[in-house]
């Protein structure tokens, strides 16, 4: 499907995402102006503050977004019963975006006002202007062009960074970009990136135009200037105020998922089953990046998502790798209950562990079946691994030691890109996920982990105990979902979405119908 075809066919969704994106950017930039301009003014009055404040804004720009989200999500700040900080969704995304766009606004306000000709300032003071009159009648109007230039830079930065909002279910064009990266789908990536770039260009042009008319000053009469000001002030306050009305999840079951295809399918399966079987309303909060789903669960922002036993053991509990699946499951169940008031229910039935993959033709030509077989012939090979595999305790170092691997070259890259790189012979061996649909799509072969190096990653719903109490039918349903999926089935579902480009929602519904969990008919084709 070509890029334009995609846009045409999905124009409803594209417009929605553009709308979400604009919403995030407008509110964030509005709040950044309301915070940044007064701060910049304050710095001109108390120059001693300028170093620490500008330093802070500078540092904020360098904090990686996932780290910032990880810090913001657990916050739980209320103002008059309204949650104003913390959680997943637009609220946290906006806070992060505001922090990212403050620097150019503060800095330009500060330098714009400091740059006003001292003689003009002295003329104002000599005529008997108070500090406030000098600020509003002389300094701010003269610095306005520079301040708007700062807002312009902040807006463009904001349009770009707002794509990360998709990592915490805050919507925006980042959804397409992340989805596209995950599925190795350039059309999807473009469908997110091109509209985002266009928004940035248009915003830049509009604010550039505003900057020019203001600098020429003469074009705007005093009366219309006042009108313009009050208009801008009302708009800013409206935008910033709407931040406080971003809705919560009360009364509904919030189902989460991490940010890869399998998780979205599993999230849909959970959500659909809960909707149909318990009658509760469900809110879907999918595509949460990194371990943010866990943070969101702890913060009560979601009620349930599918976690993997190995991830719970290693990434969350920071415990040592264990090999026995039953022991791992028992351990995470006990520890999660004790530490987080979270419950691991019945395993879904499949194990999504690392899969050591090579091309089918190599497997055939060299007669390779196990990882040990590959280790013997791999001296000239180039291997590619995701960042995750390189750094985790059950990842590369132990793997290489256990099997005695010495590769010619190791490339550390985005996991989703390694499959294609392997298929295109830029790599010879990768560590993918055993359930990945791309394995079938590219005709890759999984080698047997004959030394049992990789710990188990059994997929299991993790649910808040509070949610189980609040929605009594939930427990029975989750039990019913126990053992419904084999590795092969999961791979097929993944391939239906990644390979055949079908909607996760449809794939999940058909699966549940086939398993007789919900009623309905599957279209035959």
């Amino acid at each position, binding site marked *: 499907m070509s890029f334009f075809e995609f846009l045409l066919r999905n124009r409803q969704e594209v417009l929605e995402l553009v709308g979400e994106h604009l919403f995030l950017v407008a509110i964030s930039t509005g709040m950044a102006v309301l915070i940044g301009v007064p701060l910049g003014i304050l710095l001109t009055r108390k120059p001693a503050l300028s170093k620490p404040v500008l330093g802070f804004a500078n540092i904020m720009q360098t904090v990686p977004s996932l780290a910032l989200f990880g810090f913001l999500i657990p916050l739980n700040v209320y103002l008059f019963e309204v949650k104003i900080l913390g959680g997943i969704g637009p609220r946290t995304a906006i806070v992060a975006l505001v922090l990212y766009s403050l620097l150019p606004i503060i800095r330009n306000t500060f330098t714009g006002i400091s740059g006003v*000709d001292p*003689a*003009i300032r*002295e*003329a*104002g*003071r*000599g*005529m*008997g*202007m*108070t500090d406030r*009159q000098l600020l509003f*009648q*002389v300094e701010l*109007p*003269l610095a306005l062009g520079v301040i708007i230039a700062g807002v312009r830079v902040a807006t463009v930065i904001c349009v770009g960074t707002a794509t990360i909002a998709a990592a915490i279910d805050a919507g925006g064009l980042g959804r397409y970009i992340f989805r596209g990266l995950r599925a190795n789908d350039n059309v999807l990536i473009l469908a997110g990136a091109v509209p985002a770039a266009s928004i940035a260009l248009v915003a830049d042009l509009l604010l550039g135009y505003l900057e020019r008319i203001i600098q020429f*000053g*003469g074009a705007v009469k*005093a009366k219309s200037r006042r009108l313009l000001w009050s208009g801008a002030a009302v708009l800013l306050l409206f935008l910033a105020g709407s931040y406080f009305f971003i809705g919560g999840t009360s009364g509904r079951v919030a189902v989460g998922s991490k940010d890869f295809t399998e998780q979205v399918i599993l999230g849909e399966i959970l959500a659909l089953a809960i909707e149909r079987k318990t009658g509760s309303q469900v809110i879907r909060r999918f595509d949460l990046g990194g371990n943010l789903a866990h943070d969101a669960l702890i913060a009560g922002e979601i009620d349930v998502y599918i976690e993997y036993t190995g991830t719970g053991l290693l990434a969350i509990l920071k415990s040592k790798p264990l090999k026995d699946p039953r022991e791992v499951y028992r351990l995470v169940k006990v520890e999660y209950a004790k530490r987080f008031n979270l419950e691991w229910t019945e395993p879904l039935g499949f194990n999504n562990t690392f899969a050591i993959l090579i091309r089918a033709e190599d497997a055939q030509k060299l007669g390779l079946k196990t990882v040990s077989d590959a280790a013997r012939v791999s001296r000239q090979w180039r291997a590619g691994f995701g960042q995750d595999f390189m750094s985790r305790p059950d990842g590369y170092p132990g793997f290489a030691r256990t099997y005695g691997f010495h590769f010619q070259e190791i490339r550390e890259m985005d996991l989703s890109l390694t499959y294609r790189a392997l298929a295109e012979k830029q790599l010879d061996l990768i560590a993918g996920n055993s359930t990945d649909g791309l394995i079938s799509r590219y005709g890759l072969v999984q080698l047997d982990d004959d030394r049992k190096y990789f710990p188990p990653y059994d997929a299991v719903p993790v649910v808040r105990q509070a949610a189980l109490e609040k929605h009594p039918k939930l427990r029975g349903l989750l039990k019913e979902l126990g053992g419904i999926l084999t590795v092969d089935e999961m791979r097929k579902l993944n391939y239906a979405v990644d390979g055949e480009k079908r909607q996760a929602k449809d794939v999940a519904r058909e699966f549940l119908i086939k398993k007789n969990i919900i009623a309905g008919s599957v279209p035959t084709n």
Partner: protein
Amino acid sequence: MDAAKSIEFHGVSFRLADGKTLLSSLNLEISRGETLVLLGRSGSGKTTTMKLINRLLDPTDGEVRVESRSTFDWDPIQLRRRIGYVIQEIGLFPHLTVAENISVVPRLEGWDSERIKDRARELLRMLGLDPDRFAARYPRELSGGQRQRVGVARALAADPPVILLDEPFGALDPITRREIQFEFKDLQARLNKTMVFVTHDVREAFVLGTRIGLVKDGKMILLGPPALLLESDDPEARAFAQCFHEAGSAENAA
């Protein structure tokens, strides 16, 4: 209270935080309606002296009195609104029109808009600028001389009893400068205001000054009618007198 005294300096010194003295023990009385020209080289302390009057600076020793009241007792904002202030042409607000520039102080004082408008037009006419042509222009659309006239109009706007002028004509070409000096002298005679006028141009001092105060290294070394400068034996006074004579003879030769 002596009604004839407008501004008095009593043993006034001004030192910077680093100890450098810009003005030392100045005693001076300026009468109502008088124009005192502070003459001196760059950095001699003339501008410092002027800024002590409208409290842009506060004396480190002694006191300055305006209308018999110490500047320390004046609210600086109230004081400044009773004192017109003209600095070199850059003092006009570039984002305001000519009329808006002139109306700044009346607006701060809360005049009603009709009165402000009339006053701005009256002042423009007084300074030889056609209100219909100039009121809506921006400073960058004016010539240097026109800008300076607007600067003077702005200082006169709220009809203050005292006007301070800090080298107001410094940036003008010599011809415009002479024209505006004589126009200003004319205006002076009509308005009867107390003026303190800072310049390093000795001819300007002679044209405009009722008295001339010669300032050197933070001290007033000579104070009196212009003729006194020409008679003095002080080397600095003679240097300025020399300039005056040379300019005069050059003019005669031409």
